[in-house]
């Protein structure tokens, strides 16, 4: 099951440049939260702080509190263990190109020392089924490589790979921006189903997508969280004029 995410006073820097300013945000368990805002506003930096990927950038620094459920993300847990609980899907599908479909999904398990073949088979099938890919690839999961799949299938393969280690949170950084409308529709349908089991945070430039998949939406601007509210409120009657101007296309 998913867990809630609590963020308090989160600040992040790239060298001397401050990318995030005092972000405070509560994301509900088993809901999808969309983050929108113009390029460079800090939304991707924000989700990279949730799974401590931001600190892997040379010169980057983070201050503040991030709680994933009861767990303090920045105290008492290694980044590697944290990332087992927080899966991530990126803008461009990035399957391991030389690995089979099966090995792509099992990669995280193997890295964690898992070697029970029978159970691994079950987890791979379950993960591919959860990412709505099993029926399309079940006949050749050992024969074909991840790179042989279409872009949309590759992205669902990456989702299956993230789900295989049974995370509680799934971060998605513009997961559909490289996909056609049919593949986008499948990923959105998948998000709708996955949020019954996971807490989902999705960064998107597609506002219709945010409106379709997320119960809550946050608007970022210049490293600050300008507005956070129920999605229907944000897209029909936002409280802040800057949100209104952005979503109606008057700037950004």
């Amino acid at each position, binding site marked *: 099951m998913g867990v809630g995410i609590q963020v308090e006073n989160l600040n992040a820097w790239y060298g001397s440049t401050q990318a995030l300013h005092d972000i405070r945000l509560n994301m509900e368990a088993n809901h999808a939260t969309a983050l929108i805002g113009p390029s460079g506003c800090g939304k991707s930096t924000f989700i990279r702080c949730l799974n401590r990927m931001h600190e892997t950038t040379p010169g980057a620094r983070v201050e503040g509190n991030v709680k994933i459920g009861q767990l303090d993300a920045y105290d008492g847990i290694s980044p590697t263990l944290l990332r087992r609980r927080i899966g991530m899907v990126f803008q461009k599908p990035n399957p391991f190109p030389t690995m089979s479909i099966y090995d792509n999904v099992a990669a995280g398990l193997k890295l964690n020392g898992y070697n029970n073949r029978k159970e691994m088979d079950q987890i791979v099938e379950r993960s591919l089924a959860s990412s709505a890919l099993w029926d399309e690839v079940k006949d050749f999961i050992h024969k074909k490589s991840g790179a042989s799949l279409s872009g949309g299938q590759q992205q669902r393969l990456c989702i299956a790979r993230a789900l295989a280690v049974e995370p509680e949170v799934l971060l998605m950084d513009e997961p559909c921006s490289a996909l056609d409308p049919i593949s986008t529709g499948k990923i959105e349908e998948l998000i709708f189903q996955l949020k019954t089991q996971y807490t989902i945070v999705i960064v998107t430039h597609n*506002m*219709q997508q945010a409106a379709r998949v997320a119960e809550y939406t946050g608007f970022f601007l210049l490293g600050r969280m300008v507005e956070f509210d129920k999605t229907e409120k944000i*897209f*029909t*009657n*936002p409280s802040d004029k800057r*949100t*209104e101007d952005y*979503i*109606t*296309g*008057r*700037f950004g």
Partner: protein
Amino acid sequence: MRTRFQQGLDELRQKLLRQGGLAEQAVERACRAYLDRDLSKCQMVLEGETLINICEREIDELAFDLLAMQQPMAGDLRFILAITKINSDLERVGDQAVNIAERVMDMVALPAVDLPVDIARMSAAVSAMVRRSLESFIDAKAELAQAVLEMDNVVDRMRDEAFIVLVKTMNDHPETTRQALDALLVARNLERVADHATNIAEDVIFWVRGADVRHNVPRDGEAQAAAAEAQSATEAH
């Protein structure tokens, strides 16, 4: 800035203003036709209705295109939704003006009688409601729209008073029944125009404030509180 989208919104606004002007003119001409027993004004109302109907179709088509092609959000979305509803109300205002004109055409064929009803006062109030509801749209002023809502009760009372005195007239002077019936129907048509002006004002408030003030129905939280209160009152008994 989305230039094409903004041009589309401006065009939609201009078309609605034209339709609003035609509807307002139709009501004033119909009232004048009744008060002056003027058949030429009736003819103008009938001809004007065609133009209002053309506007209605053009506005719907443009609004539909903007919704499909531009995916409006927030204030823009509320603006377009409000316009499609105001469009429909203005077309109905035009229909009511035609109904009044038809009553006048019937009435003019009958001997003139002095009826104890002030249609002039009622038509002035209704015309003011239509004009102010359109002004509230032009200026995006929710306060002005709110004032229109409050005028509706005044017109309702005028209609009720007209009903009482005209029914009495029909009883006391049966020879004037047809003329009194025409006046009664005109009063009802005017009250319907006031209802459409009220709808327009409500749509302006929705556009400007994002608030749904129709039917005096409480919103989610208020509805739950009201239901809980009703429940506890039932249990107390």
